[in-house]
C-alpha cells in the first residue's frame, strides 16, 4: 500500500478532494457531507506531508499522467518550490473545513449544504491542481475549476447580502477575462514554439531570440494571472468578493487563492521565461511590478483604514499584503523571492486566522460585520479574541509572530537591492496598517457592546481551528527556520534556472 501511495502522491493530492467532491455532492446528510469533506482534506494534508518528505530528498518529482512522456502528455512536477503553496492550500484547507461546518449550516439553505461542500472541495482541488501542473494549458483548466467554484461559493453569500451576487459576477467576468488573456498568451507561445509543457517551453524560448510574440505572450500571461492574483490595479474584484462571501469561503479564499496565483506568476516569469530573462522584458517589467506593488501597499492600507465593514477591511488589507508579496518577487533576487515565499506562507496563516476569528464573532448577527456591531464582543468571546489579537499583531508585524519574520526578510531584501527608500516605504505602510488593526482591537475590547444579544457564547467546535491557527502564527514566528530555510531553498532553485 505504502509504495503505491508514495509513487502516486503528486496526483493523489489533487484527486482526493476532487473525487470526494463528486461523492459529497450526492449525500443528503449535511453532517455526513462535512465529515466526508473533513476526511478528504485531512487525507490531502497527510498526502501533502508525505510529499514534503518525498520532495525533501528527491528534490524534483515528475509524474506523467496517463503514462505519456511530457511534451505529448501532461506532466506534474513537484519540487521544492511548488511544495510551499501546496502545503499552504492543504493545511489551510483542512483548518477551514474544520471551521466551516457551523457556518455553512447557518448561512446556506439546508438543502444546498452538501453541494456547497462539493464546490468547496473543488476549490481546494483546483488550487492544488494549479500548483502541481507543469502544462501551460492544463493550468488554465484548473484555473477555471477553482475560479468557477469560488465564484459560486462567493455568490452563495447572497442569502445574507445581495451584494454577494454582484461581487460574484464581477469576480466571474474579470476572472474569465483574465483566464482568456492567459489563454491568448499560451496560444501565442504555442504558435511560435509548438509545445505546451513548461519545461519544454523554457528550453525552446531562448532559441527564438528577440521574438515579439514571446514578449507579448509573456505580457498576456502575466496580465491574466495578475487579475487572479489581484495585483494592484486589477484587484477590484477582490474586496467585495471576500467581504460578501459566506464566512468559511472568505477564510479559504483569502488565505489561499491569491497565494496560488502569485505562485503561478513566479512560475511563469522564472520557470518559463526565466532562462531568457536577461533578453526579455522582465527587467523592465520588474520595475512596473515594483511600482504597482508599492501602490498596492498604500492603496490597500489606506482603503482599509477608512473602511467600516470588517471583512472588507481585511480584504483591502489583503490587497496591500499582496503588494508586499509582489514586491518581493519584483526585486528579482534570491533573497527577494525567498522573502516573498515567506510572506506567502505567513500571510496565509495570518489572514486565515483573522477571517476565522472575525466571522466567528459575526456568527450571531448574520448581518454585515461592522466595526460597531462587533464592539465589545472581544470580552465575551475570549478565545476568539485571543486568536484575533495574535493574528492582528502578526499582520502588523509584531515580533514573535510570523508577520515579523516576513517583514524582516522583505525589508532585508528590499534594502539589499534598492537601498533605503524601499524599506522605508514598506515600513510606513506597515505602520499605517497598525491604524486599522488597532481600530479593530480597540473596538473589540474597549468599546461597549452594541449588539443586544443575550446568549453570546463561543462555539466549542471552532476552538480547534482557531487555536491551531493562533499557535501556528506564534510557533512560526518563534521557530521560523522551517519556513525560512524552505523559502530560501525554493528561491535558490528558481534562480538557478536562470543563467
Amino acid at each position: 500500500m505504502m509504495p503505491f501511495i508514495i509513487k502516486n502522491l503528486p496526483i493523489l493530492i489533487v484527486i482526493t478532494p476532487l473525487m470526494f467532491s463528486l461523492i459529497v455532492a450526492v449525500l443528503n446528510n449535511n453532517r455526513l457531507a462535512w465529515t466526508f469533506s473533513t476526511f478528504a482534506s485531512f487525507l490531502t494534508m497527510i498526502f501533502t506531508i508525505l510529499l514534503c518528505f518525498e520532495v525533501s530528498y528527491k528534490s524534483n518529482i515528475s509524474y506523467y499522467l496517463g503514462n505519456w512522456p511530457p511534451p505529448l502528455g501532461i506532466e506534474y512536477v513537484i519540487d521544492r518550490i511548488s511544495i510551499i503553496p501546496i502545503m499552504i492550500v492543504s493545511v489551510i484547507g483542512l483548518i477551514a473545513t474544520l471551521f466551516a461546518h457551523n457556518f455553512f449550516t447557518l448561512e446556506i439553505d439546508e438543502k444546498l449544504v452538501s453541494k456547497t461542500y462539493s464546490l468547496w472541495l473543488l476549490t481546494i482541488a483546483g488550487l492544488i491542481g494549479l500548483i502541481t501542473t507543469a502544462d501551460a494549458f492544463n493550468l488554465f483548466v484548473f484555473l477555471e475549476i477553482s475560479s468557477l467554484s469560488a465564484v459560486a461559493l462567493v455568490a452563495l453569500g447572497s442569502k445574507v447580502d445581495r451584494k454577494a451576487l454582484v461581487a460574484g459576477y464581477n469576480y466571474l467576468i474579470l476572472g474569465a477575462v483574465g483566464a482568456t488573456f492567459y489563454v491568448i498568451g499560451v496560444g501565442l507561445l504555442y504558435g511560435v514554439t509548438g509545445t505546451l509543457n513548461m519545461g519544454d517551453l523554457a528550453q525552446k524560448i531562448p532559441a527564438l531570440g528577440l521574438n515579439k510574440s514571446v514578449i507579448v505572450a509573456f505580457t498576456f500571461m502575466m496580465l491574466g494571472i495578475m487579475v487572479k492574483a489581484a495585483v494592484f490595479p486589477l484587484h477590484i474584484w477582490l474586496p467585495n468578493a471576500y467581504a460578501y462571501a459566506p464566512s468559511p469561503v472568505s477564510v479559504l479564499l483569502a488565505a489561499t487563492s491569491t497565494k496560488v496565483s502569485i505562485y503561478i506568476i513566479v512560475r511563469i516569469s522564472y520557470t518559463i521565461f526565466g532562462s531568457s530573462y536577461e533578453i526579455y522584458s522582465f527587467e523592465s517589467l520588474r520595475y512596473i511590478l515594483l511600482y504597482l506593488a508599492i501602490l498596492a501597499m498604500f492603496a490597500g492600507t489606506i482603503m482599509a483604514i477608512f473602511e467600516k465593514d470588517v471583512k472588507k477591511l481585511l480584504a483591502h488589507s489583503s490587497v496591500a499584503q499582496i503588494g508586499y508579496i509582489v514586491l518581493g518577487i519584483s526585486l528579482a533576487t534570491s533573497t527577494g523571492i525567498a522573502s516573498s515565499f515567506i510572506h506567502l506562507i505567513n500571510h496565509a496563516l495570518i489572514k486565515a486566522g483573522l477571517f476565522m476569528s472575525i466571522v466567528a464573532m459575526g456568527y450571531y448577527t448574520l448581518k454585515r460585520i461592522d466595526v460597531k456591531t462587533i464592539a465589545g464582543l472581544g470580552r465575551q468571546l475570549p478565545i476568539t479574541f485571543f486568536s484575533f489579537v495574535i493574528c492582528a499583531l502578526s499582520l502588523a508585524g509584531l515580533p514573535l509572530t510570523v508577520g515579523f519574520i516576513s517583514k524582516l526578510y522583505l525589508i532585508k531584501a528590499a534594502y539589499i537591492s534598492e537601498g533605503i527608500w524601499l524599506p522605508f516605504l514598506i515600513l510606513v505602510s506597515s505602520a499605517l496598517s497598525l491604524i486599522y488593526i488597532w481600530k479593530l482591537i480597540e473596538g473589540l475590547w474597549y468599546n461597549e457592546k452594541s449588539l443586544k444579544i443575550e446568549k453570546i457564547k463561543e462555539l466549542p467546535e471552532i476552538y480547534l481551528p482557531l487555536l491551531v491557527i493562533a499557535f501556528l502564527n506564534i510557533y512560526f514566528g518563534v521557530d521560523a527556520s522551517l519556513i525560512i530555510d524552505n523559502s530560501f531553498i525554493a528561491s535558490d532553485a528558481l534562480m538557478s534556472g536562470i543563467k
Partner: protein
Amino acid sequence: MIGEIIINAFLVTLMLTIAIFIINTRKVISTILLTGTYSLVAALMFVSLDAVDVAFTEASVGAGISTILFLAALSYLPKEEKEEKFNVKHIYAICTCIIVAGLLIWASYDLPLVGQLENPVHQNLAQDFIEGSRNHIGIPNVVTSILASYRGYDTFGETVVIYTAGIAVLVLLYDGVSKTSKIHKENNK
C-alpha cells in the same frame, strides 16, 4: 488552395460584421440571435480550418445550448437594454482595446504565417500524435485519442469544470423557501 484562403477570409470578415452589429444592438433578443449566428459562422470557419470536432462542439454548444441558456435567462430579464450615452468609460474601453490590439498586431509580425507546413506548431508533437494515434491507440480520430488519452487529464478537468458549473447554477438558482435558523430569528428582530 486559393479557394480555401478566400473562404477563410470571407468568413472571418463576416464574423467581424456580425460582431460589429452586436455592439450596438439594444434589443436583447437580436443580440442573442446574432451571437448564435456568430457562433454558427465561427463553426463554419472551424470546419474550413479542418477542425471538425471543434466545429461540432461549437455548433452544439455555442450556437445551441448557449443560445437556449441565454433565452432561458432572458425570460427573467428586461428585454431591452437601457440607452447608453457615450461616456468616459467608452473612451477608456476603446483605449484599452486599441492598446491590446496594437500589442497583438505587433506580435503577429513574428507569428508564423497561417497554414505553412514548416511552422513550429506542425514540426513539434503533431506528427507524434498522429503516428501515436495510428499505431499505439488505433483510433482514426486523432482528436479523440489526444482528448481522451494523451491529454485525458485536461478532459477530466473539463468534465469537472462543467460539473462545477452545473452544481453552481443548481445552487444559485435553488428556489426553495430559505429557512432562517433559530438563533437568527431570535437575534434579528
